[in-house]
């Protein structure tokens, strides 16, 4: 015989801490979270696929409990991603087109001009989820392995990383390959410092709350102007067709971004005299399109 009985509680004092929706981003920003994860290291780790980042996204979880523990109460399907592309305008147009084909229009506030890897925007990108370098590309991924090895010591063991592949590569790399990797690193650094020429590629961060994409209206490395980004809807566009991703994510409590890859090697412009590069570029855009479609399908599954 149990000592206990079911006793409905007629009234309960609400806790004094607020509901999630009542707690704003600026509240949070006033209490910055100190982390050991710096921007370059986060990129390097992510590019390496460390800890389930990279190809698998962030959800290491395998059931509700796991999602809870890793996500602190939220399941995050996939983390935000950087797409490095030589042709931001093409990628941008593609994103706008695919969204439009699915009945979505991107509003101006969903689209912001990015200045490469300028620190403030990086911080914001990190705030909504640390960005990842497109890890599908061989040389980028290994470049970061090499970079990390050179800067933080020998790369021996990181849980869940593709260390065998990296270690084997580092042992077997030829001088020519090494040079290629160093070139990639060099270019990445030039991007970061804003000294890369305009045609050398760009980085963009895609995320449902702050879609940050480069625009050609100001040039990828120039400061943004008041010109509306190219993805802004035209006057008179039906507001019903406009989906506020910001409110959608808030409503549905998700912060997914699942556009990965789309990488095109920096400095390899698609030119008539360079058919292999044209092929690569087309492939990368096709990959990006598939990923955008997947992303939209994901949003639709969430009822957005």
């Amino acid at each position: 015989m149990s000592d206990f009985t079911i006793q409905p509680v007629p009234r309960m004092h609400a806790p004094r801490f607020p509901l999630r929706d009542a707690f704003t981003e600026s509240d949070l920003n006033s209490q910055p979270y100190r982390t050991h994860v710096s921007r370059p290291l986060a990129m390097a780790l992510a590019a390496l696929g460390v800890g389930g980042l990279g190809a698998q996204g962030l959800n290491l979880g395998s059931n509700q409990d796991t999602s809870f523990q890793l996500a602190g109460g939220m399941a995050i399907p996939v983390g935000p991603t950087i797409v490095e592309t030589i042709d931001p305008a093409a990628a941008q147009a593609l994103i706008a087109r695919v969204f439009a084909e699915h009945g979505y229009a991107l509003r101006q506030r969903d689209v912001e001009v990015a200045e490469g890897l300028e620190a403030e925007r990086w911080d914001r990108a990190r705030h909504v989820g640390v960005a990842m370098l497109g890890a599908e590309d061989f040389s980028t991924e290994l470049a970061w392995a090499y970079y990390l090895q050179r800067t933080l010591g020998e790369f021996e063991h990181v849980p869940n990383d593709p260390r065998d592949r990296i270690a084997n590569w580092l042992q077997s790399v030829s001088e020519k390959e090494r040079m290629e990797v160093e070139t990639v690193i060099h270019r990445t650094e030039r991007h970061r410092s804003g000294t890369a020429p305009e045609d050398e590629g760009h980085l963009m961060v895609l995320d449902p709350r702050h879609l940050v994409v480069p625009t050609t209206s100001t040039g990828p490395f120039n400061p943004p102007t008041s010109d509306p980004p190219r993805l802004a809807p035209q006057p008179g566009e039906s507001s019903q067709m406009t989906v506020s991703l910001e409110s959608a994510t808030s409503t549905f409590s998700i912060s997914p971004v699942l556009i990965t890859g789309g990488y095109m090697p920096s400095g390899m412009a698609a030119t008539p005299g360079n058919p292999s590069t044209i092929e690569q570029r087309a492939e990368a855009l096709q990959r990006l399109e598939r990923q955008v479609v997947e992303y939209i399908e994901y949003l639709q599954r969430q009822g957005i």
Partner: protein
Amino acid sequence: MHLTLHLTHACNLRCTYCYTGEKFPRGHMSEKVAIRAIDWSHETTPPGEEIDIVFFGGEPLVRRDTLERCVEHSQRLRAETRRPFFFKVITNGLLVDEAFLEFANRHEILISVSCDGVREAHDASRCDALGRGTWDRLEPRLRLIRRENPYAQVTLVVTPKSVRWLAESVEWLFGLRFRYLHLQVQHEAEWDRRSFRELRRQYRRLAELYVARMRRGEKFFLNCFDSKIHSYIQGETLAHQRCSVGRGQVSVAPSGRMYPCVSFVGADDREEHRVGDVWSGLDEEKLAGLACRMQRPKPSCEGCALTDRCSHWCACLNMRTTGRIDRVSPVVCEHERMLMPIADWVGNTLWKERNRLFLHKFYNRAYPVLSHLEETLEHWAEQRGISLDAVDEAIANLPDESVAFATGKE
């Protein structure tokens, strides 16, 4: 889709509270059934949606070969179709060795070890077939697991026999640097007022421990408080994450028969709870009936202000405690009424102080990402004997160094 594969009925332990049914030494899941179960989940889950595979038992590592085949098969499917698969193994830890940990790390398998805490608590229930305690054998393996896999979680079952060591056990596990602790109160045990008083006392000690650790900026997950704080903060959202029997979650017995959740599998002899098998799929009519029974408002809870935050919705829990999925146990009710105010005290205290870790843990959507990266870095540094300060310094110097290196000027 959450797919739990009960790889075997066999187990090397005889825990007194085990709910997974009689232990048949040869009741293994064949590789054919396991692969079919994965294929079934793949065929019935929309493209691109993730499948979470949980390896359970019995003791799943008794069938390590089958587990490995399952992972390899899923990885092939992932490569072919870009379907994300995630893996978790729930183990008693005694069969874990370095080779398995290497395999788990390589395939990103999350490890959940069952350990009830300090020796007295653990050996009170977790015995082998000869009735001997297993703490001495588990303890070195726990250290090994933590060393190789910083994300491993520990599940502690709390019983009237072990409750008085609860806070001590949690502290001990934190001391081993496990950060993800999952307390599972054995509601179906013989709890009485005295043992519940002890449980309340232990929860209060844990609440103080929780607040102290948060003030020191130490990250961890302790489900008893975290889930209750989230249940308020997330409100409606959390309700969507709750299980609904058989929908998006299936447990497969070694025979290939399917059940709505782990607690229903038992000895695989409960016809009324079977919802299909891996060959012919789910019995939709039966599932709908179960869901209907589960979602019906519970008259016993009518008018209760705690229902949105309470565990009364859990079919598994109701099944274990009352034998019916739609009936709530008085012990569950008593426990929820006890736990919630203590969890709210934790939340209120940390909110009042505007504790930075609290704010980010519960309100920052990016926290899981940052936290995960941070842990990865800490583990990386720890394995090399590098202090985090040194890492910080290296990071601060990264851009210049890398430019110098990349331009050949170093």
